[in-house]
């Protein structure tokens, strides 16, 4: 009998890729079985959900529309991608970024001054990760002393059934070459989860985070004192059941199973 210890769950921070849907290079991906109904059941029970995602290969609007097409229903504002968190930092600190990100996420950064950059923003740039582009970013960091911002720092995700490199490994490359630590806007940074709590208007004890990435989702949430639940969908592999460092508060087969547990409380 699965059980979630701690206080009654009043709100959920929910990962998107690997929890709601599986990623694919073509079309919108595929909804994970039971996830659409699970979200609907939470809504009917009055449990709020915010979607804390590291998705940065498209705009928030585009991601929202993909989810609607798959059959999910949520507001665009309930989705919290790293680009929005990065925008806040850029505005607050008067930064002028050089972007090494996927072209499709650039509209979410519209209006930002990019002349004479004093910062490098790296995201899930995929095919744009070439030696020349990395070298250009490195030179800005080393020679122009630019600040480094990373949109999330995940190691990999699952797409078309295969594990594929996320932004984290490329951030690690730039950190190593330029001798500096990136500021992470997105999971697993605790501030990102705290922004989620503020958005829900709830305390850490009243919320649970659910994701498929044991380090970024579960470990990150726990560092923000939020219970972290791991799903066995998405990028999950059997090795994650015995992670040397992160011990999830609960491991479930999928989002549907977690919602069963929450609604039993």
């Amino acid at each position, binding site marked *: 009998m699965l059980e979630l210890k701690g206080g009654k769950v009043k709100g959920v921070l929910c990962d998107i890729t690997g929890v709601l849907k599986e990623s694919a290079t073509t079309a919108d991906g595929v909804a994970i079985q039971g996830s659409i109904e699970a979200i609907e059941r939470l809504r009917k029970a009055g449990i709020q959900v915010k979607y804390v995602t590291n998705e940065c290969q498209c705009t928030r609007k585009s991601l929202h529309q993909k989810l609607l097409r798959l059959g999910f229903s949520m507001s665009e504002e309930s989705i919290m991608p790293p680009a929005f968190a990065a925008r806040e930092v850029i505005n607050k600190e008067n930064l002028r970024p050089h972007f090494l990100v996927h072209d499709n996420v650039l509209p979410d950064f519209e209006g930002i001054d990019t002349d004479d950059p004093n910062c490098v923003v790296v995201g899930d740039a995929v095919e744009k990760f*070439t*030696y020349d582009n990395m070298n250009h970013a490195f030179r800005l960091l080393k020679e122009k002393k630019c600040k480094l911002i990373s949109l999330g720092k995940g190691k*990999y995700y699952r797409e078309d059934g295969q594990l594929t*490199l996320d932004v984290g490994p490329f951030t690690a*490359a730039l*950190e190593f*070459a330029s001798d500096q630590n990136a500021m992470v806007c997105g999971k697993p940074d605790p501030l990102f989860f705290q922004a989620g709590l503020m958005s829900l208007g709830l305390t850490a004890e009243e919320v649970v985070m659910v994701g498929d990435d044991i380090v970024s989702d579960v470990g990150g949430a726990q560092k923000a004192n939020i219970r972290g639940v791991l799903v066995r969908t998405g990028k999950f592999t059997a090795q994650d059941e015995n992670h040397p460092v992160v011990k999830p508060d609960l491991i479930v087969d999928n989002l549907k199973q977690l919602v069963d547990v929450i609604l039993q409380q």
Partner: protein
Amino acid sequence: MVKMAKAVLLDLSGTVHVGDHLIPGAKVGIQMLKSHGIPIKYVTNTSKESKSCLRNRLCNAGLEVQENELFTSLTAARNYVESLKLRPLLMLEDEAMKDFEGIQTEDPNSVVVGLSPSNFHYKRLNEAFNLLKNRASLIAINKSRYIKTDDGLSIGTGAFVSTLEFASDKKAHVIGKPSKDFFHLALKELDPKLQPHEALMVGDDVRDDVLGAQQAGLIGALVKTGKYLLGDENKYGEPNYVFENLEEMAQFVLGQEKK
């Protein structure tokens, strides 16, 4: 404290040459050492070129070098792969592949990473990552952060090794400097009777050349050419000596000899 250096190990890129040009003072310094019978070995982390290619480049630049004076991390890597009977996915430029001729590469169970801009793109790195996630081992020819090139500093092999280490949670076995084994193997090849404390290592990379050498028991000297940046001598540890260039280094070594 004055230490006697009986032999000199010299880094190449950034210390003797940058690209196709010799660094001022390098040729004179090397000739001074040779004419006084001081044994020299060029110890390089280069992973873009085979030994013969490297020798040609230096000769064309005006420095007479024999292949047997070169100790490269590429050859050390090949020896390592052969000794363990590994089948590598080679992330190397075409020129460097020559040093791996005869090594089986089908059904790879290891990934060997050298300085290879043509391999450092998403698709290829992803391929390497998936092998590592499936039990392959990771071998780094070197873990250099950056190198000096004709148009400034350029991101090095180490950055892309970090990419694969971070993604796969595996640590690379690093063949070249600052690995202790590398310095010891170079000394052994130069003269099996040489003790580490009798050898002076000279280079422009304070961490990989100088501190690495010191940790292997050698005397470490930083030279202010190549990738050297102001303040390097104070940032990471203490080089035994700091020289403007190889000519100044040779004058010092020969000056010690006379005492």
